[in-house]
């Protein structure tokens, strides 16, 4: 079953990995799923298929997908600037990119609500132009894009830095224009990293609670995200209902991540073949 490895220590490596993954990921996940076991079909249907739950799922997946898409575009742009240019304050900008990871999510939420609230410095201006940000899906998307942004920059950045210049130069020497080179050479090579960044930003957004509840307004049917629905069930001491919703969120996220991973591998394989 096992071929001889070039690197020793396979047993140790796999053993520790297995333990860590089990302790840190599998056992907690199994606990979540197990708490939902034993719910009657009717209870399960009410927990998952009520108009309110469906509205929350639509909002969470919609806003998370949109936020991850924005992150990939903005993240690739910022990564490109960081990699391509040397300018004053570059190291500073580089560090600033990671701030959303370090900031407690509640701080992010309160900062966004203050900034984009009806009487906030940005919110007031936008409101004068008829754009409501705070307490709308737009505000939710903004907060989600903020927390997912570093993932996009950090997955695309290193790949961008390691892109072989020769290909680009060769194409240029053969007469390819700048846009053609970006579309035919740079982007295809970046695509797997961009997808990975998209997947990470998406995963982060789907489960995000702290930064969103302050700006979302939490109105049932309109701006209620799935994690808030889970919190609500927990406050009602309805652990099973909470677990049922959490399990669906988990499975859906897992499915999305698997699918993205599959596309990513295909892209890499195609690239290697080409």
């Amino acid at each position, binding site marked *: 079953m096992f071929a001889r490895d070039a690197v020793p220590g396979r047993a140790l490596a796999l*053993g520790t990995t297995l333990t860590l993954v089990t302790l840190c990921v599998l056992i907690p996940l199994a606990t979540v799923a197990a708490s939902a076991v034993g719910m009657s079909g009717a209870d399960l249907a009410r927990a998952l298929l009520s108009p309110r739950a469906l509205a929350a799922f639509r909002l969470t997946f919609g806003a998370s997908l949109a936020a991850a898409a924005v992150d990939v575009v903005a993240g690739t742009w910022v990564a490109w600037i960081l990699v391509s240019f040397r300018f004053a304050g570059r190291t500073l900008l580089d560090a600033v990119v990671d701030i959303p990871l370090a900031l407690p999510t509640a701080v992010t939420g309160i900062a966004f609500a203050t900034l984009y609230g009806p009487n906030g410095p940005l919110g007031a201006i936008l409101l004068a132009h008829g754009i409501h940000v705070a307490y709308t899906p737009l505000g939710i998307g903004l907060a989600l894009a903020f927390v997912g942004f570093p993932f996009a920059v950090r997955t695309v950045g290193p790949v961008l830095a390691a892109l072989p210049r020769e290909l680009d130069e060769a194409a240029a020497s053969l007469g390819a224009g700048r846009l053609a080179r970006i579309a035919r050479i740079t982007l295809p090579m970046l695509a797997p990293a961009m997808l990975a960044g998209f997947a990470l930003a998406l995963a982060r957004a789907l489960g995000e609670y702290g930064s969103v509840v302050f700006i979302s307004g939490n109105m049932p049917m309109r701006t209620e995200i799935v994690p808030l629905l889970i919190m609500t069930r927990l406050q009602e001491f309805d652990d099973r209902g909470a677990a049922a919703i959490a399990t669906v969120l988990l499975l859906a996220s897992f499915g999305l991540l698997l699918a993205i991973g599959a596309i990513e591998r295909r892209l890499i394989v195609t690239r290697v073949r080409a």
Partner: protein
Amino acid sequence: MSGHRRRAHILAFALLFGAALGLAPQPGRADPQTLLNVSYDPTRELYSAYNAIFVKHWLETTHQTVVVNQSHGGSGSQARAVIQGLDADVVTLALAYDIDVIAEQAHLLPPDWQKRYPDNSSPYTSTVVFLVRKGNPKQIEGWKDLARDGVSVITANPKTSGGARWNFLAAYDYGLRSGHNDDAKARAYVAAVYKNVPVLDTGSRGATTTFVDRGLGDVLITWENEAFLSEKEHPGQFETIYPKTSILAEPPVAVVDVNVKKHGTERVADEYLRYLYSVPAQKLACQFGYRPRTISVLASCATHFPTIDLRTIATFGGWQAAQRRFFSDGGVFDQIYQAH
């Protein structure tokens, strides 16, 4: 064969590694003279002050030193933490239902816990009032104004906030009183009020922030002590409006029997709650905007507590019944939002 041995190796390493994690040093046993009070959000300042006078009182009467630790959070989350093993000696929460759940689900105290101290085990009370912007531009005088078109009302989500549940019930109570005890009319009234609510924060403090700092809404439905605090912190910006009727909020306290037995803190925990009814403690409560139970203290209190026609939770058959009927999944509150 070699494959089997390898798998055995992997398993052995996995087990060893797991065992090493499990054998990490255990934290030392808590000092027996330490008391943990698990409470809800707005009582932080009150209990910091109370702990100081209680420590002194305990030292004077028993010549023992005691250290009181506090834990604060949303009332429901705190109850959940205690159920899941947070080692509380005493709980001082926002509503009896949260302590009922601790008794029911974890059996850490008897179901009749609320009979053990005077006044439903609630040494201080509060009520639900309105905070409006200075000059009361929308002329909010009473509950009926909250249902008016063009009035924006701020309150937290009763599903996630204990305080917001009191707000909801106070509004419903008004709906009953004004609608000759007709439930349909009371429902229509609260539905009209919640139609005016643009944001449902998850906690009472969050709702206060939305109203006070973000400038959203014309009126905030809130605890009397929160209104008191907001007025004090932002002088000249807000005024408190006392409706004619409201609900008597009785935040209860209880000793967690199983935990105090384990810690050997039965006596000090009991005295910690009993002393809340003493004159010095009652004076503190009044200082922080809670209504003291002791009439003499209430009368001499510097904080002015206007008389309101207050009904208790008994109007709704107690917390268990109220929770089931109004705030459970598919309850009255959910129905308001399913309707549109």
